[in-house]
């Protein structure tokens, strides 16, 4: 599903964020990416949805080599990869339903389809009753669930989550991870970037540790090893 081969990323002028990273993530996997602050986790995530382009090496998603992706092709890629961030990125002036509908509208989906999909994804994240609330009327965990729901509207094969629990307390974090596992159980590949030792240990899934831009370890059923 995701193949990285000798990928490097240099931020000008001299920050070598990633060095010679090779990875193979199979369809349906749930992979955690861990590492210290500044080790290059976010950079790796950004490469997957073409927010950044690699300086060297190749990134293949499905059979699509996105290392030299053209700007006009990026929207296509983004509809196949859902993304979730620490800060939710919800529009404060729009309701939950409108925030989710927005992702479909800007992709040119028809009203009929939008009215179908929005309740579906809200149901998946368990927020069917909050469709008319504004983000500020929701808890952090609920807001993150809205952003996950939005990431699901195009039925992506891959979901990339960069520190989705970074702003949440333990209980809400746990809910979010449960939700990701639930989504994973339907076959969606999950790439989870996280700092949280407890989460990683509890997951008992594949863990890739990044250290100074390099893959330091890659273990099935791994544990969080960094201090």
């Amino acid at each position: 599903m995701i193949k990285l081969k000798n990928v490097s990323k240099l931020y000008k002028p001299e920050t070598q964020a990633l060095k010679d990273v090779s990875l193979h993530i199979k369809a349906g996997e749930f992979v955690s990416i861990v590492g210290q602050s500044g080790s290059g986790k976010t950079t790796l995530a950004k490469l997957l949805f073409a927010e950044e382009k690699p300086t060297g090496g190749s990134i293949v998603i499905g059979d699509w080599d996105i290392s030299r992706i053209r700007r006009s092709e990026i929207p296509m890629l983004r509809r196949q990869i859902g993304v979730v961030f620490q800060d939710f990125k919800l529009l404060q002036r729009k309701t939950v339903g409108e925030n989710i509908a927005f992702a479909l509208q800007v992709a040119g989906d028809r009203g009929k389809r939008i009215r179908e999909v929005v309740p579906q994804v809200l149901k998946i994240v368990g927020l069917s009753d909050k469709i008319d609330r504004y983000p500020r009327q929701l808890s952090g965990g609920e807001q993150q669930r809205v952003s996950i729901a939005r990431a699901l509207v195009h039925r992506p094969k891959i979901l990339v989550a960069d520190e989705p629990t970074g702003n949440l307390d333990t209980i809400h974090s746990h809910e979010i991870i449960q939700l990701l596992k639930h989504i994973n159980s339907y076959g969606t590949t999950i790439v989870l970037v996280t700092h949280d030792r407890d989460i990683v240990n509890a997951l008992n899934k594949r863990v890739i540790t990044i250290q100074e831009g390099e893959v330091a370890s890659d273990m099935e059923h791994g544990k969080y090893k960094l201090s």
Partner: protein
Amino acid sequence: MFTSTYRLFKFAIQNFFRNFWLSFVTITIFILTLLTINAIIFLNLMANATLKSIEDKVEITVYFNIDASEDIAKASQGYLLGLPQVRDAVFISAEDATSDFREKHKTEPIILSSIDEVGGTPLGHAVVVSAHSPADFPFILEAIETPEFSPYIRNKDYQNYEDIIKNIETINGRIQIGGIVIAGFFGLIAIMIIFNTIRVAIYVHRDEIGIMKLVGANDWFIRGPFLLESIFYSLLATSAVMGGTFLFLGSFETQISNFFGEVNISVFNYFLDNGLLIFGSQFVVLTLLSVLTTWFAMRNYLKV
């Protein structure tokens, strides 16, 4: 496709109202630019009409001797009508000339009594010549001096309007240059304003734009609203100026034509006949200008 177009319009209209004051200022400056341009057109129209009417009024009167026969005068009329430079030549008989003269001087008893003293018709026949262009008068004045007519001609009277015409042309030229400078000035400000308006609109919508990009919005879906917004500005400004112009010309039509007296044109009709061309081309140019500027602003501030 329809759904997307509808949404583009919706977003564009939202942009418009969310920055209402900026939109307002942008349209105002667009209107000022257009008003200057239309004022130039208006003044130019007036100047040309004035020139035309003055040129029409310029005539040569050829006075024949009292003893010159009507045949001679009529022959010269025919000869003059044959010249391509001559627009018209009118024969005025001695009787008509005398009564005209009396009419003209009816408040001056001394002159009238001196005519009565002479008795009969003291004036000879005359031919009044008008030309297509005032520049042809010297030629016509020459041409009439043929051996056939020359001996019978007493006098040639020619009111010289050339200085007036030159003055009007100079003033009109100055007004045009001044107008173009002012229009250019407003145009420049308009470009800077629309650039800034779009820049602010992009800034205001940065979160939305960021999210649009993340969820896979097409490029044109992100750019479209801003382009549409700039087209709205042009459309609104042109419509406002067009409406204002017709309202102004319509309600002051009589005053305008009184002011210009004999100048016999209807500015209102002129704008009505050519309105599509005048305002259409202004709309097209304004739109091109603002769309280009918007594109430039997006290239700089919209990191799509």
